[in-house]
């Protein structure tokens, strides 16, 4: 389960962002996770709870923006499908489908508190 290593990387960067802005506590962190990034959002949230204990991000919320990969038919265009369901061939013309996107693994936003200021 590499979600723990990834949660630790998110924490490290978030703490740097917090320090840069003179914040005291992290309230919410937003990440973008692509469908093909091999990261499980649910496991990432559990890992986040575990790695933030005892630090400035303890009790904070990890918001995961899950981005689907897109499948395209070279002749018919975009193909609708359920998340995780990979369609090998175009249902209309039988052509092998192509895949685009879904590899995102980004830290997007950090919401924090500054000591002495009312939120």
């Amino acid at each position, binding site marked *: 389960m*590499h979600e723990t290593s990834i949660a630790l990387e998110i924490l490290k960067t978030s703490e740097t962002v917090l320090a840069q802005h003179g914040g005291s506590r992290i309230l919410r962190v937003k990440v973008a996770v692509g469908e*093909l990034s*091999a990261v499980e959002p649910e496991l990432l949230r559990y890992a986040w709870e575990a790695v933030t204990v005892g630090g400035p991000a303890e009790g904070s919320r990890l918001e995961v923006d899950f981005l689907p990969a897109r499948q395209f038919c070279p002749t018919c265009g975009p193909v609708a499908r359920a998340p995780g369901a990979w369609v*090998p*061939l175009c249902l209309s013309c039988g052509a092998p*489908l192509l895949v685009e996107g879904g590899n995102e*693994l980004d*830290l997007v936003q*950090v919401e924090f508190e500054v000591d002495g200021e009312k939120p």
Partner: protein
Amino acid sequence: MSPTADVRAQILEANRQAAEALRTRFLQEKTLVVNLISSPGSGKTTLLEATLARLSGKLKTAVLVGDIATERDADRIRKLGLPAYQILTGGACHLDARQVQGALEKAGFGALDILFIENVGNLICPTSYDLGEDFKVVLLSLTEGDDKPFKYPAIFARASVALLTKVDLLGIVDFDVEAVERQIRTLNPHGEILRVSAKTGEGMEAWCRKLEHALVAKRA
């Protein structure tokens, strides 16, 4: 409303930088680097033994083996008289670029033609970590079931070579090779698919030729 900072940073930025440093180094040293990824038991070590045996005498090769806790796989390679170094990940299910940097310092392989990185047996976690390699190879053995590519699309989409291993079992085990190849092509239309058997030697020549061509291309 609390203050928020918009960040837009790659989560694996530290790994990306380490991988970039490795890539530069491998380019200077003109070493081709191949990252092998598969589930446990797909025959990675056996394939490597057969590959190294074929390349030895022609090319200078070495292997970095990632394992959670044992030295067994590296020992098998060393028995062939070839340099191997085991990276014990201490429980982690993947290798990262910093571990590779550290291992290369300790292993002291010298100038190499091809460095193989045998990643930890796992089709998910190693997928996210760039190790500065020239390309990833995913192995899928005929004993694993023929629905794997769609179950683990990320690695099949990212590996530029898919090796179907243990093809000597074709017709013995229930495995629809054509269906699997179609799945892989869907996920990665530009990737190469090779059928190999380390046991009978089938496909091994094509695989070794592929490696030699990639090395020549890198040095061109």
